[in-house]
């Protein structure tokens, strides 16, 4: 009973916060509304007994949105909080497409006769996930990890303001990089 109430409150919060992301003028509020939406989905995953994944979603998304808020404030040329304005294009097309997609998906969700549940969840779901990742599904994680590693490298290459010639000199002759902020390990 309490579980069902929590679930539907979380569902309401998830959708309402999702709408708020695009309604608010404040960049900080938009970021944290999205974080609230993710936390609500995390809570709903907890209702499906997905303890580990639910908590991980909450953990990652709060972290991500804390950083996202910084990017929002850094990159937005003007401050819509001070100067409310519409920053959208193709609003009518977008609205029609979104509405059609929603109606289609909702109709499919309600009309398709979904199969009954096959099997029962494992007693310790976190352990079963760990066994799967380190056992039969190891290839998945072996694929994901180089992708994540490539992402780190790629994002750094794209995002870093200084290249190695600026740091180490034109012929890469410096022993220590010439950085505007010196690091803490005394290089």
């Amino acid at each position, binding site marked *: 009973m309490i579980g069902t109430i929590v679930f539907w409150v979380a569902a309401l919060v998830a959708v309402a916060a999702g709408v708020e992301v695009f309604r608010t003028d404040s960049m900080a*509020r938009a970021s944290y509304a999205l974080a609230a939406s993710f936390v609500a989905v995390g809570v709903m995953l907890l209702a499906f007994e997905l*303890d*580990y994944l639910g*908590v991980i979603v909450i953990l990652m998304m*709060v972290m991500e949105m*804390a950083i996202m808020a910084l990017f929002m404030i850094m990159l937005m040329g003007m401050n819509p909080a001070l100067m409310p304005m519409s920053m959208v294009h193709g609003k009518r097309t977008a609205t029609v497409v979104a509405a059609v997609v929603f109606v289609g998906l909702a109709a499919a969700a309600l009309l398709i006769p979904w199969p009954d549940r096959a099997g029962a969840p494992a007693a*310790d779901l976190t352990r079963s996930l760990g066994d799967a990742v380190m056992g039969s599904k190891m290839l998945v994680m072996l694929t994901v990890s180089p992708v994540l590693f490539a992402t780190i490298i790629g994002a750094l290459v794209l995002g870093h303001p200084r290249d190695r010639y600026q740091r180490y000199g034109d012929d890469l002759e410096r022993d220590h990089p010439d950085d505007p902020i010196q690091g*803490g390990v005394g290089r």
Partner: protein
Amino acid sequence: MPEVTTLQPWWAALAPVTLLTLAAAGAAMAGAQTARRRGDGPLVAATTPLTETWRLLRQRRRVPVAADRVLWHVAVGGLPVVAVLMAVVVPLGSVVLVDSPVGVVWFNAMDVMLWALWWLAGWGPNSTHSLVAGHRFLGLALAYELPLMFALTSPAIAAHSLRLADVASAQQGLWFAVWMPVAFGVYLLSAVAFSSWGPFAVAAHSDLAGGVLAETSGVDRWLVLAGRHLVLAAAALVAVPLFLGGGAGPVLGPVAWTLVKALVVLAVLELSAGRAPMIRPERFAEVGWMVLLPATVLQMLVAAGGAS
């Protein structure tokens, strides 16, 4: 798997009270340290938290122009809430309020909440000093969070479980703090950092006119100051099952031992404030990523080797 009894929900009312008592003890220690430096008497020292509470709760609240009140309230009120949520998964002997099968990850998620809260506390009042302090905290957070995650993983690997009761009972022979000193050290360091306290008080330090405290007054200020001690107390409580053998100990019961150990850890955390100068986040970033991160990964290898 050790048996722990989940308490009835109404016991939850006791959690904030217990944590507040612990935090008050911690605040008294910190107050005593400050008072001794200033040369005040022991009576002044011991009662500093109480007199400050009394003063702040009577103070009229001041709100700057164009403050983002909603987000500010979330931040200020969120600190004590997150501290309590951190502490509810800690087993006190054979009883626990929330017997989470992923207690370690839950603690981690709650400490990540502090990223959001400290930054929002800086954003809310619409003040430059506060905002700089909030941004600065995120810089520090990027440096300590990954070493902390690996430090939290080590006990979980050794115990083959993410449940705090299992982690505590896996230390029958030897405390994890003894053979995982790197993980324990990084944990203590990060606890000080995410509470924005002592050498890591980047979100609320006098070098930025108080940082997020620059514009807070009255009950808001009390919530931030108390919230900081509450988070420290919660981190000290979680350290007990993670690294210090849970409630194990002679003569006294497990509940008493958990609290005694938590008090000792809390004393270490609180008294760190008087021992070191403030560490700059931009300097600490390199230390975190190039020293602490590899060290904690090696610690994980040791933990995995020792556990198998």
